[in-house]
């Protein structure tokens, strides 16, 4: 989840594209809770009733987004992941889907983009939490170009979308189709699903391994059709940049009539009281290239590694 050497960040791209979109689309609204204001200041001046900073009031941020949707607008709510998803979770649950309303929640910070910030600014649980709710689309882009494609796709819809931006990014964008896994390469020993910014380290870790590599920039709905169609061996490796095992249930569901083995790789469930760098946290969670290679290789050598 190392920050890539790309021209801009997902966060920058979000601010730039959103500012443009609110000029073009009178149906679009944005709600902020202080975080992200600097990138959208001009849009706030131009559209004071639909690009709104509510102050440090995260419950209100989500409820106001719901109210904007009730008035017929398409709202985006944007903040740091723990303050967007975890703190106002009841508002996310009740004021959006339960009311029959849709919004786009765009987070930054991901699992530990700011390790020095400590636990309060880390949200590896966010995707799992949203996944408890029905009918959400969850995008985890791995590159600013993908973030833009997924944002534009979300804006023209009317459902609930969680767009999880991260500082970590892959060097190159993938030719993604929103909602589908992209087939990066095909192999015979296992199917690896790399999510968002985990693609580059996972590709490097498995460069000489005989595996199919699927890339997910959209993880909900879970593209079980592509997984089933591409499955060559009854072994699946999930590599997710958030809580380990978050998508394990969906792999089981997709392969419910197929005996299979599953290795779930992701951020470990622990109170990790360390600061430092994202690279150090990758190592602590065994998400660095060396650890990924070791874990995937060992899994491939396990039982039932033959063909389906």
């Amino acid at each position, binding site marked *: 989840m190392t920050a890539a050497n790309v021209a801009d960040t997902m966060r920058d791209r979000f601010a730039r594209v959103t500012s443009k979109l609110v000029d073009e689309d009178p149906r679009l*609204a944005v*709600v902020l809770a202080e975080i992200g204001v600097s990138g959208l200041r001009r849009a706030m001046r131009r*559209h004071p*009733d*639909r690009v*709104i900073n*509510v*102050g440090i*009031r995260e*419950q*209100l941020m989500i*409820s*106001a*987004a*719901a*109210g*904007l*949707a*009730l*008035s*017929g*607008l398409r*709202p985006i709510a944007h903040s740091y992941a723990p303050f967007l998803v975890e703190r106002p979770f*009841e*508002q996310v649950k*009740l*004021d959006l889907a*339960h*009311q*029959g309303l849709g919004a786009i929640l765009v987070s930054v910070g991901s699992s530990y983009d700011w390790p020095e910030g400590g636990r309060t600014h880390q949200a590896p649980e966010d995707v799992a939490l949203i996944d408890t709710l029905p009918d959400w689309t969850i995008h985890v882009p791995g590159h600013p170009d993908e973030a833009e494609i997924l944002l534009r796709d979300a804006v023209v819809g009317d459902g609930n979308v969680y767009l999880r931006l991260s500082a970590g990014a892959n060097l190159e964008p993938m030719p993604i189709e929103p909602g589908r896994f992209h087939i990066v390469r095909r192999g015979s020993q296992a199917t690896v699903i790399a999510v968002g910014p985990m693609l580059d380290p996972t590709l490097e870790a498995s460069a000489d391994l005989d595996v199919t590599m699927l890339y997910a920039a959209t993880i909900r709905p879970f593209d079980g059709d592509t997984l089933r169609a591409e499955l060559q061996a009854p072994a699946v490796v999930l590599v997710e940049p958030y809580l380990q095992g978050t998508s394990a249930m969906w792999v089981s569901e997709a392969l419910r009539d197929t005996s299979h083995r599953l290795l779930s790789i992701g951020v470990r469930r622990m109170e990790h009281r360390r600061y430092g760098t994202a690279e150090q946290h990758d190592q602590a969670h065994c998400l660095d290239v060396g650890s990924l290679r070791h874990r995937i290789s060992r899994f491939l050598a396990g039982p039932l590694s033959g063909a389906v």
Partner: protein
Amino acid sequence: MTDLPTAPAPGSTSPLGYADLPRLIGLMAGDEKHSTSADSTLDVLWVLYDRVLDVRLEALDDPDRDRFLLSKGHGPMSYYAVLAAKGFIPIETLATFGAYDSPLGHHPDRMLIPGVEISSGSLGHGLPIGVGLALGLRSRARKSRVIVLVGDAELDEGSNHEAIALAGRLRLDRLTVVAVDNRSATYGWPGGIARRFEVEGWASATVDGHDHAALEAALAAEHSGQPDVVVAVVGEGT
């Protein structure tokens, strides 16, 4: 069931009246007894639907309609009775209150009842939604009013105070809160509920929550440049 009131025909000019409400509530309660929260809001709800709100049965999707948000979703029998008296809910549906396949739960659901603008039940959601709704309507140059009913104890929820502060700063003058005060908040509101809103820039009026003329005057008042709260005081424990 022999005294079942007749539902008004759509567009009828002679709907049921205030005097019919106890019988309608009785259809849900099973007898003439009904809960404290149903009782405390009955007059406010009646005045809103009979005299204040611009909502019409035949134009439920009119973008210019007024929006009434019942935030205090507990004790919705008065609400359902008023909606039935005005023709939004068939009278015979009231008797299904709380049944598995009834649209009428013990907290209202906007997806099940035509004319209900929000689903409520968990306290402290209606006013924050109302702030977003008022902003959205203002951005679309709609003149609709947004009227949110809360209870005094509901104001314990901190989410309300996020909304009260912002609505005052943003001068949401099409937003009205009617706070039904039956002094049920355990720790109360020293200095009164109205002051809590006034300090954030709201206009306020405090009236007898059973006095229809006073409620109508307060709820119909225009407040240019600031949102307003109408504190409807009802008897303690009613």
